[in-house]
């Protein structure tokens, strides 16, 4: 058998591996301000180009241009900047705490902060969020105390998950943020079901959910799009295309042949491709999709084009599979720097204020950590009582679980 010679299975091109020069020529860009903004009530068939173009508001000079400019007031922009910066500083320190052995695992959202922060801000607090593990910014926007997030990371006595979940798998019932699953993509159709229920109940809230471009290969992605389309559910389906899924380039998730946003029109729903590092564009597009959903226009698929600037997780080393200084060449820049530049440009911010805010937030993170560790840690204790592991399997413990709990107590002496 001479198999190798004639082989011609196509394999998606990966632009730059270690040792090669970064190459982002494959990213299709539109100039800021260039993409028209249809009415949120427009018919799907009139929206197809939105799924291949790239909605952008902030141009290279830091000006907000074009029809998608959401015209937020400076106060809102400053809040956005603050949330993004806090997210990043929080990530920074947690990464270091993991390296120091204080927590077992961590995942940063470095370079993608605009996604969670701008989208979170564009939605109502009563809208239900179904995040992936890289949406910590949503918790920040919704006002979760850092201490609470940290206690989860520490699996300590105040861990909202009672020690059951890996670090970063937060949730918040009070803030309408659903529990993160270690199983990729499962939240996507669940969000659709939540939105269907809102429609059935005649309530005005919508659901929003996030998935990595790599995870969009899972069946759940298809189920979500299909059910959302069939029942015209009030849901916003977000694909965060940060170009990588651990070591796997987005071409392997189908991004080589066409944009992820283009799946939307394929299923008969609006699909929009947006500059994910442009706070204003992300905000505007989300606002548009929310208006669409709330006025009975059904679901929208948003592809947020961004870059995973950090490693996948603390278990990962991207130097093994991608060009070393890739992130610096990313054509859409850094979301924090871009919003900062804009605020300075419009005279509503300064380097000094930025530094001050940075110091303030860093201190907040530091003091929160100090407080969090007073509730213990997995490594050094105290932890919650191990007995708790038998609870919440069911609403009430079954006789079988009660028996096992007693056995475990005996075993531990």
């Amino acid at each position: 058998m001479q198999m190798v010679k004639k082989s011609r299975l196509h394999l998606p091109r990966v632009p730059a591996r270690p040792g090669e020069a970064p190459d982002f020529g494959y990213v299709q860009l539109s100039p800021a301000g260039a993409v028209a903004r249809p009415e949120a009530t427009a018919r799907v068939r009139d929206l197809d180009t939105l799924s291949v173009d790239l909605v952008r508001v902030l141009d290279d000079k830091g000006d907000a241009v074009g029809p998608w400019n959401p015209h937020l007031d400076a106060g809102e922009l400053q809040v956005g900047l603050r949330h993004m910066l806090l997210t990043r500083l929080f990530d920074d320190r947690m990464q270091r705490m993991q390296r120091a052995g204080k927590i077992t695992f961590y995942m940063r959202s470095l370079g993608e902060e605009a996604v969670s922060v701008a989208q979170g801000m564009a939605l109502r607090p009563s809208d239900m969020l179904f995040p992936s593990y890289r949406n910590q910014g949503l918790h920040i926007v919704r006002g979760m105390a850092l201490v609470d997030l940290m206690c989860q990371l520490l699996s300590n006595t105040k861990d909202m998950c009672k020690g059951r979940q890996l670090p970063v798998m937060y949730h918040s019932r009070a803030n309408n943020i659903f529990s993160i699953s270690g199983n990729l993509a499962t939240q996507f159709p669940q969000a659709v079901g939540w939105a269907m229920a809102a429609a059935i109940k005649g309530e005005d809230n919508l659901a929003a959910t996030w998935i990595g471009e790599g995870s969009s290969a899972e069946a759940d992605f298809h189920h979500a799009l299909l059910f959302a389309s069939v029942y015209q559910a009030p849901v916003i389906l977000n694909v965060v295309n940060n170009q990588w899924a651990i070591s796997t380039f987005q071409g392997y998730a189908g991004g080589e042949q066409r944009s992820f946003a283009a799946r939307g029109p394929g299923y008969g729903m609006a699909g929009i491709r947006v500059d994910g590092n442009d706070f204003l564009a992300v905000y505007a597009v989300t606002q548009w999709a929310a208006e669409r959903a709330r006025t009975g226009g059904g679901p929208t698929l948003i592809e947020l084009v961004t870059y995973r600037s950090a490693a996948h997780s603390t278990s990962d080393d991207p130097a093994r599979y991608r060009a070393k200084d890739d992130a610096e060449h990313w054509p859409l820049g850094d979301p924090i720097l871009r919003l900062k530049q804009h605020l300075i440009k419009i005279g509503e911010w300064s380097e000094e204020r930025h530094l001050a805010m940075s110091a303030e937030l860093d201190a907040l993170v530091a003091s929160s950590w100090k407080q969090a560790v007073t509730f213990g840690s997995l490594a050094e204790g105290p932890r919650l009582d191990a007995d708790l592991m038998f609870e919440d399997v069911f609403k009430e413990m079954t006789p079988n679980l009660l028996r096992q709990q007693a056995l475990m107590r005996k075993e531990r002496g």
Partner: protein
Amino acid sequence: MNMIQALNSAMDIMLGKDPSVVLMGEDIGYFGGVFRATEGLQRKYGEQRVIDSPIAEGGIIATAIGMGLNGLRPVAEIQFADYIYPGFDQVVSELARIRYRSAGDFFAPVTIRTPCGGGIRGGQTHSQSPEAIFTHVSGIKVVMPSNPYDAKGLLITSIEDDDPVVFFEPKRLYNGPFDGDPNKPAVPWSAHPKGQVDQGYYRVPLGKADIVRAGAEVTIITYGTMVHVALAAAAAMNVDAEIIDLRSLVPLDADTICTSVKKTGRCVVAHEATRFSGFGAELLSIVQEECFWFLEAPIQRVTGWDTPYPHAFEWEYFPGQARVKSALKTVMEPA
């Protein structure tokens, strides 16, 4: 009522009683379901509450979970238990785990109804009994009724339960009890005491087995279709068997089981599913662990074979009276 009517009545009552109850599934709405279990319910409660779905079991279960998280109480129908696997990940990784991983902050009170078992010439993809698989997944309750009265009461309890339930309906029992002999004329439920079903609301608790026949010589632990086969086989052999219908596999009524075996000293476990790693293994294990010193003979398992359920050899596969009798004979042998 036959079992279909009893199930229909349960859903009818729950739709009427609790506005958060919704039904979803393939062909269940306008048409009323391929087995007619939801007949008339869409007309009565509207398309917003009795919802036809795409053919996507994974999507049905996932969206049911989402609805459950938003305060509804969804009852999803999977057209055949053989078709539950495309939704398996959402059951195992999500439905079963949401309460646990969120430390009780979130839960989805979903009931999944699905017809199981053979005996209708359905071939290998319309005959499976996959209950054992679900009993191995912590966080899922597993129910299988053997008659209309229980079916209705158990379904109402399942829908009201805040934990997820997979509710298996032995389809061969829909229209009448079945003693394992396909050549005998079919008997309707109307002639059976358990076919006498209250019109109104009532519950049958989960986790409480039913001793369908008290006896002294041997305990037969079973559920679903095999309850009737066991009754017939024991009667035919004139064995004074105590026959236990589990009704719910999770939670399991180990007390009733063990009390009985400690009394009789002999035990047969019977189900229609494949033997290897079937639920019979768990039952046998519990009895062995708890009642070892009372046993006068090895516990016997009566099951389907470790093959798919073949269309043409359905009755050779099905654990009929001959197989039960042979187990009873073995277990009754003096030591």
